[in-house]
């Protein structure tokens, strides 16, 4: 009887993952169908089937603006959520956010420096994402220098170092914001609100590569992340190379968040909220939580971005406002729930 119950539970969790995976194409299609430029079902079908019988402007709007944007939102949301799931699992802390390891603050610093010196248009506009990515990576490299192999309290030390790094980056950021010209200040503020409006196909491809790499690394450590929920020492007794798992998980999260932030600015809450949704739906096993968080994060940001470009059309809303509008209430509800985490 209980043998059946345990099997039922895992079958149900796998079923839900399949359901989530099936939802993603529907959400992508819906987001691609909706927008300021009206595309009817007939035209949508023609566009998807490659028919030439569609006005050139509509074709350009669909294939060069809307579809890359939907994909960018999905990849950014998926990357942030996957990184969040990895970091939360690693730190065994439901409040851990990829921002905790300093990568977002570092990326913001890189971008703000770009704006400060007026370099955001250099290298055909690629210097800005490069600077953001480099800033994020640098922050994590500094953090990892505090990662002195496996020792008791190693994770707590990393979190504290992350807090200090964030505070330092924040103060440097504040200094540049204070000294910036009015023009640069407005651009910086805009960047920190996050947006998928600048989506182009090359960025989509770059992000896809990063998401694939991050997924590969984290998927390999899914079992180790499960074991880490018993505590780092117990995980080590079970055969987990804790120091390596910790280093590679943080590196993967840094790559994912760095790339996502580079192209879409800082977008909050997805990395915190999507992994929680995944756990609520599928339980605690990371081989399910990681892909589910990726799918949920992708769908959340695609929907938030859909709102950003349609709610006040033809004007754009900052997507950060909408992710917070979805994420905020969920977070409060999470705080009210009797916690199943024993921190």
């Amino acid at each position, binding site marked *: 009887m*209980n043998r059946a119950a345990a099997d039922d539970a895992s079958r149900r969790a796998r079923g839900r993952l399949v359901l989530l995976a099936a939802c993603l194409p529907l959400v992508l299609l819906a987001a691609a169908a909706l927008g300021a430029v009206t595309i009817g079902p007939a035209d949508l079908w023609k566009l998807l089937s490659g028919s030439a019988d569609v006005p050139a402007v509509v074709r350009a709007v669909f294939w060069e603006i809307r579809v890359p944007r939907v994909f960018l939102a999905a990849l950014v949301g998926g990357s942030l959520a996957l990184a969040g799931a990895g970091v939360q699992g690693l730190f065994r802390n439901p409040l851990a956010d990829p921002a905790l390891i300093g990568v977002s603050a570092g990326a913001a610093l890189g971008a703000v420096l770009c704006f400060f010196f007026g370099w955001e248009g250099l290298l055909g506009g690629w210097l800005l994402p490069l600077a953001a990515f480099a800033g994020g990576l640098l922050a994590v490299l500094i953090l990892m220098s505090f990662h002195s192999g496996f020792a008791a309290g190693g994770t707590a030390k990393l979190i504290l170092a992350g807090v200090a790094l964030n505070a330092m980056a924040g103060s440097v950021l504040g200094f540049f914001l204070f000294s910036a010209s009015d023009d640069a200040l407005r651009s910086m503020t805009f960047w920190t609100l996050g947006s998928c409006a600048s989506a182009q196909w090359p960025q989509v491809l770059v992000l896809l590569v990063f998401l694939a790499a991050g997924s590969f690394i984290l998927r390999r450590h899914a079992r180790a992340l*499960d074991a880490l929920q018993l*505590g780092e*020492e117990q995980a080590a*007794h079970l*055969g987990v190379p804790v120091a390596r798992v910790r280093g590679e998980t943080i590196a993967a999260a840094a790559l994912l968040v760095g790339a996502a932030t580079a192209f879409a600015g800082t977008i909050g809450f997805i990395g915190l909220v999507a992994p929680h949704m995944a756990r609520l739906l599928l339980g*605690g*096993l990371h081989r399910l939580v990681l892909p589910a968080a990726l799918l949920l994060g992708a769908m959340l940001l695609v929907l938030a971005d859909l709102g950003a470009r349609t709610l006040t059309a033809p004007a754009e809303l900052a997507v950060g406002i909408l992710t917070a509008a979805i994420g905020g209430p969920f977070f409060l509800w999470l705080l009210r729930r009797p916690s199943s985490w*024993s921190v």
Partner: protein
Amino acid sequence: MNNTFAPGLVAEAVTLTRDARRILDGVSLEVKPGRLLAVIGPNGAGKSSLLSVLSGLWKADRGEVRLDGKAIGDYGPRERARRCAVMRQDNLRPAGMSVLEAVELGRLAHGAADDARAVARGQLAQMDLSDLAARDCARLSGGEWQRVAFARTAAQLASPGRGGVLLLDEPVSSLDPAHQHQLLGAARRLAAAGHAVLAILHDLNLTAQYADEVALLVAGRLTVCGPAAQIMQPAVLSDAYGCRVVAVGSADGPARALVSLPD
């Protein structure tokens, strides 16, 4: 130094210093296949630290720990985990995981061909926990979770044809008397099946009933080590704990019990 092959776990003159405080001082002991060694001693004597060094988690400053004849530091984490299973005192509960899934974690170091689910189910049945298999770990009582942790630790060693080392840190601290006997009985059976078992215990009577050998650790030193019957004597224990321990009942009958009294 004696480097001849000895199955089980051997510690030779292990010394550990942390923050200028000597925690272990020249501890030598042997956890032998087929035997259950109990480590007892007052609070703060260094018992849990000893377990961390024996399991290879901490490196001793001096001395050596050998697992199946090879220095424990020379094992990779997975190979070590297949030979030596540890049940810690501070077992945290995995959020959102079922009991069955938590026990399957014991098989983490075993290869992809391993049927973790079958092993986990077997161990849960051994501990009379099959009814809880689908329960969320967060919804277990403290005692239930301790039994689940033992089942997971036992699952880690369940490899046919080879004896492993089992290190248990206060495995019965949350259990009622019936389940204390259930768990220690299971530990005894594992020893009888060829595993080398070490258990840190506090209950003197359980120690006397289940241990083959007893090591008494006081202030980081192994004061005495030997057959249980020899060490579980009121005089030795009174001296070690600094309080009066007396034996009640006949000196050699099964009804004999050790009772501690205020000075």
